[in-house]
């Protein structure tokens, strides 16, 4: 803060003044809603996540109070089941991942030298969805219908037969949070790939940024199956489908597969950024380049990749065949190797550096102690026969709290203290921070070490009461006392941060003498972040500044406080970070908020079982999102021409240069994963069925599906025409091609609806009929969206307002064609899966 003030006293630069206003978020309630900039949104994410965290800690205290004594009657079974379900759900869905996303949204642009994230409106939309989702989950308390199926919500317990309205709150709230998470993931990935400072080639990216890049991709592949699972389950509950209804051919284990395909990567989605924080703190406090950068990077990648091959180690006791299941034991061991690599790389980095034991570093030491412990017991539970014993006991509870608190919460707290100057412009109170750390550290070990014993002595998890005959009475009391200590330590820490935020010492620009880019900015950074894109030549730009001869300085200087009349940031290429273009970034707008409200209305209508209203709200939401996408950037012509002349790179971009194209790729990745999950469900249900179609249902088929699918093939002709039309600059051919695609697309949709309407069975007849309808309906829904995109593009072309080769129009063309091709592919696949494959196998 001092630095900005000092500078403004030295010289009052009118350009800086205007630039600062351009980038600052509007004030007032309306302004609050309209804010889109990454730093306010990132902070909101973190604050909201910490509020949820505090609530979940309070619930943990209730759990420990109930278990402090055998046969305690403080909470009955219903209250206890609700409390532990919400404790777990809050910690994992409403705290851990959103906190990471918030930290990432805040930090990543600062660490890579960008002025904002790639899709500012999407981050605002995501935040509101996350908040609404969390509130929806908690609204269940108002109706006395608290979800009680555990954070894993195994079917059939979570199905319509065995659980009440609480689960609907849970599922709908969770869906919103998942959509928010997916949005943030695409955002983070595209930002890292495209917005890095000139010269920050991939091998000069801080490891925490690498970690975020990896988890961004992981979220796309992990959250989507969960989103799919929650939607299928909600359909079972609200619309009578039968995916998980064992009486009608559904499967009890399908949910577990979908859930853990998300659930295991989820752990590493939380853990990898935490290791990134540890790396940042270790390298800063040791004042040394991290040892074995490449090994750590390899470890991060292996962890990310292998984590998708581990999900069944949560299902060791489900009675699946033994020997294949051992594969999952072996895969889990790989993770141990990757984690070990990181641990020893940090130790090597620290060797002989005599670091100062400041609070962030203390938390890292706490991380070492607790995470190592949890890691070793992780290998134990990954060993299948041993897991058969300790699965679903307090041993596992102890293990995952070691890994999640030691491996994630402690690094997060390290990060909050470490980046406090950047987040708030102030320093924390050192003494209280240290007190908070020590109390929490002791409290943690006293709470969770005894749980290993409690579990090994046969006490199960998720039980509201136990008998003194188990011989775990004293241990439970100790654990509960430890929990009080832990909660006290956490409360001290968070309160200290809260008070220091307002009253703490004003922070210097780089109190830790750290080496990464965010420390080149004042604390806190100005609204625009970087006045010009920083030029980077090293992994630690603050330790080794770029030489003045670097030719990249020219473009950087040109962009100093520019563009002045719209928000813009430099786009660089994916590997070498060579400047490519200047990306337009939207300013404050209320549209994301309104769209999120419409989606909330849809979810509430489903809860109230008013499905017509839900449909209307969903349509409204789509309309609002369509408007959001269709809106054109407001770019001042004059400055545009002037800047274009001076810059060597274009001011607007299309194809793989632009963030928009990558965003579309991300969306397609998400939809493809969801579709893959559906195909998996189809064959999984089939595999465990005696007959297919189940229960002697007539097999739909005949000529009509062929007739419906053929327009998809014909539409390729239209795409080919429009592509050629653009390449040959023949607007007539282009419009004709687009019209042809739209025509065949419409034919597909209408035909598809007609055929589905005439299927000889209802959607609720069996699991087969449910998956049949969904697999065939899914491409139809996508086709409607794709037609909307194609129609909008056609309108742009026909209106002739834009130059034919205008980058924005080209991007519209590319994106809508890409989306259509993808839709057509899924349409054909659905035909092959549901019509052809039953005859082949």
């Amino acid at each position, binding site marked *: 803060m001092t630095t900005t003030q000092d500078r403004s006293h030295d010289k009052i630069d009118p350009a800086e003044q205007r630039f600062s206003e351009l980038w600052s978020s509007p004030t007032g309630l309306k302004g609050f809603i309209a804010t889109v900039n990454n730093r306010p949104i990132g902070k909101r994410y973190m604050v909201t996540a910490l509020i949820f965290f505090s609530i979940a800690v309070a619930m943990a205290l209730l759990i420990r109070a109930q278990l402090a004594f055998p046969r305690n009657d403080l909470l009955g079974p219903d209250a206890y089941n609700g409390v532990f379900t919400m404790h777990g759900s809050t910690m994992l869905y409403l705290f851990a991942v959103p906190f990471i996303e918030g930290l990432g949204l805040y930090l990543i642009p600062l660490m890579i030298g960008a002025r904002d994230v790639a899709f500012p409106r999407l981050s605002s939309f995501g935040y509101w969805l996350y908040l609404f989702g969390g509130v929806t989950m908690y609204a269940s308390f108002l109706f006395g219908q608290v979800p009680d199926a555990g954070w894993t919500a195994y079917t059939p317990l979570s199905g319509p037969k065995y659980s009440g309205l609480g689960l609907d709150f849970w599922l709908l709230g969770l869906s919103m949070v998942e959509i928010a998470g997916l949005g943030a993931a695409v955002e983070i990935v595209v930002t890292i790939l495209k917005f890095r400072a000139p010269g920050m080639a991939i091998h000069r990216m801080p490891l925490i940024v690498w970690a975020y890049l990896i988890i961004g991709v992981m979220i796309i592949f992990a959250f989507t199956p969960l989103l799919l699972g929650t939607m299928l389950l909600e359909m079972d509950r609200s619309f009578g489908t039968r995916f998980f209804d064992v009486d009608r051919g559904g499967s009890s284990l399908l949910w577990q597969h979908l859930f853990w395909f998300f659930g295991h990567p989820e752990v590493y989605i939380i853990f990898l950024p935490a290791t990134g924080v540890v790396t940042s703190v270790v390298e800063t406090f040791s004042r040394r380049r991290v040892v074995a950068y490449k090994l750590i990077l390899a470890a991060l990648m292996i962890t990310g990749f292998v984590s998708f091959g581990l999900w069944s180690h949560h299902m060791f006791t489900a009675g699946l065949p033994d020997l294949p299941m051992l594969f999952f034991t072996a895969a889990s061991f790989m993770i141990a190797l990757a984690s070990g690599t990181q641990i020893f790389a940090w130790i090597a980095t620290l060797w002989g550096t*005599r670091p100062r034991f400041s609070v962030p570093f203390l938390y890292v030491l706490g991380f070492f102690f607790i995470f190592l412990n949890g890691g070793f017991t992780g290998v134990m539970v990954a060993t299948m026969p041993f897991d058969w014993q300790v699965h*679903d006991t307090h041993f596992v509870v102890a293990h995952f709290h070691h890994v999640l608190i030691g491996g994630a919460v402690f690094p997060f707290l390290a990060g909050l203290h470490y980046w406090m100057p950047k987040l708030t412009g102030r320093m924390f109170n050192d*003494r209280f921070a240290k*007190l908070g750390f020590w109390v929490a550290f*002791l409290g943690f*070990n006293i709470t969770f070490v005894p749980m290993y014993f409690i579990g090994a002595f046969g006490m199960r998890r998720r039980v509201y009461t136990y008998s003194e005959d188990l011989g775990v009475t004293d241990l439970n009391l100790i654990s509960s006392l430890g929990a009080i200590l832990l909660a006290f330590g956490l409360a001290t820490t968070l309160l200290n941060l809260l008070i220091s935020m307002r009253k703490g010492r004003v922070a210097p620009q780089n109190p830790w003498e750290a080496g990464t880019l965010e420390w080149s900015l004042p604390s806190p950074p100005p609204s625009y972040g970087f006045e010009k894109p920083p030029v980077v030549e090293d992994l630690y730009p603050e330790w080794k500044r770029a030489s003045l001869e670097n030719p990249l300085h020219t473009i950087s200087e040109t962009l100093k406080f520019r563009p002045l009349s719209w928000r813009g940031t430099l786009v660089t290429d994916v590997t070498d970070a060579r400047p490519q273009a200047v990306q337009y970034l939207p300013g404050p707008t209320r549209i994301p908020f309104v769209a999120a409200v419409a989606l909330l209305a849809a979810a509430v209508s489903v809860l109230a079982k008013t499905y017509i209203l839900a449909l209307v709200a969903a349509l409204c939401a789509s309309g609002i999102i369509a408007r959001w996408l269709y809106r054109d950037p407001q770019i001042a012509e004059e400055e545009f021409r002037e800047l274009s002349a001076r810059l060597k790179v274009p001011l607007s971009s299309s194809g793989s240069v632009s963030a928009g194209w990558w965003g579309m790729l991300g969306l397609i990745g998400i939809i493809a994963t969801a579709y893959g999950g559906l195909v998996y469900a189809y064959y999984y249900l089939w595999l465990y069925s005696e007959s297919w179609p189940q229960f002697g249902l007539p097999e739909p088929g005949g000529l009509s599906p062929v007739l419906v699918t053929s327009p998809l093939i014909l539409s390729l002709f239209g795409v080919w025409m429009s592509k050629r039309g653009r390449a040959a600059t023949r607007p007539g051919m282009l419009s004709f091609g687009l019209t042809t695609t739209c025509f065949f697309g419409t034919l597909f949709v209408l035909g598809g609806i007609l055929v589905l309407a005439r299927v000889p069975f209802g959607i609720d007849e069996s699991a087969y009929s449910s998956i049949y309808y969904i697999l065939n309906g899914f491409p139809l829904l996508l086709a409607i969206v794709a037609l909307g995109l194609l129609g909008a593009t056609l309108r742009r072309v026909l209106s002739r307002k834009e130059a034919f080769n205008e980058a924005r129009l080209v991007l519209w063309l590319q994106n809508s064609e890409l989306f259509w091709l993808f839709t057509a592919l899924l349409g054909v696949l659905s035909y092959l899966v549901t019509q052809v494959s039953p005859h082949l196998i």
Partner: protein
Amino acid sequence: MTVKIKTTQKRASSIAGILPQVAVGLLLSILNASCTDTPRDSIFNPGGPAAARIAELGWEMIWIFTGYFLVTLLLLALALRGRKREKSPIGFRFVFVLGIALPTLILVKILISTLQLTLDLGSGKSELQIEITSHHWWFEVRYPGYPIIDANEIHIPVGKMIRFKLLSKAVVHSFWVPRLTGKRDMLPDHPTELRMTAGEPGIYHGTCTEYCAGPHALMAFKLIAHEPAEFEKWLRTRAEVPAVPVDPVVLKGRTVFEKACANCHAIRGLSEARVGPDLTYMGSRTTIGAGTVPNTKGNMAGWIANPQKIKPRNLMPRSYLPPEDLHSLLEYLESLK
């Protein structure tokens, strides 16, 4: 203001001063609490060969990992407290040896033990099959080939490998006898299997380990291991239909049962209902409510009058029997031995 802050800070640091003592004290008491006598259901107190082999693997891992944990912490301490150096004296090779090579050797060793153990636990010929079906918060037990249907108590012969065929009537449950072997889930759509052998006669405690909402905490069973000859005798006597009582009070109890209980509960020769547990030999069972309370007359009276008080959310409704009817019903149930 500043003075106040200072005093609170002082207090804060004095609290920090006593923390290590508190910590040591508590850690000692944890050790004390965990080392007293062997807990009843400890997995490290095996009662059969399978659990013994698993416990062995567990100990092997505990020793290795404790060692590795301590070595790593020692290295960390050396890194932090050693002589100050300009450059790190260790690098890639250190990370490779301690983070990859050595752990790989250890993990391969554990993987081989695991493979061997998994193969061993899956082999061997079973000599008796027992079918267990889980219901909302209790277990039904059937012995194929015998008309016996029991609940929450499983009788087995010592030293013979038993094959349990597991199935669930509702949600997913899990079947676990900690001292004999690991657990196995009970699914509603596919039967699963679990083998175990009891090493010596006695009572082994078991539970449902997969969370099933409601009174999941109170869903337990007992596994009673007999000498083989005794088990044969048990099977023979249990296969018989209980005799019609002669005592008038007991006989009246039987009539009360027919009126008040027979819609849900079966007693061989009297009723066939399968909503609640079979009560043919209720008098010989040791607990009520799937291991919730001991089977005493008082508890049984309380259970019949208000089952929700003893095991909340269980599916049995309360009954409003006149005192005499209740008395004779209790006598009747007790007589079913």
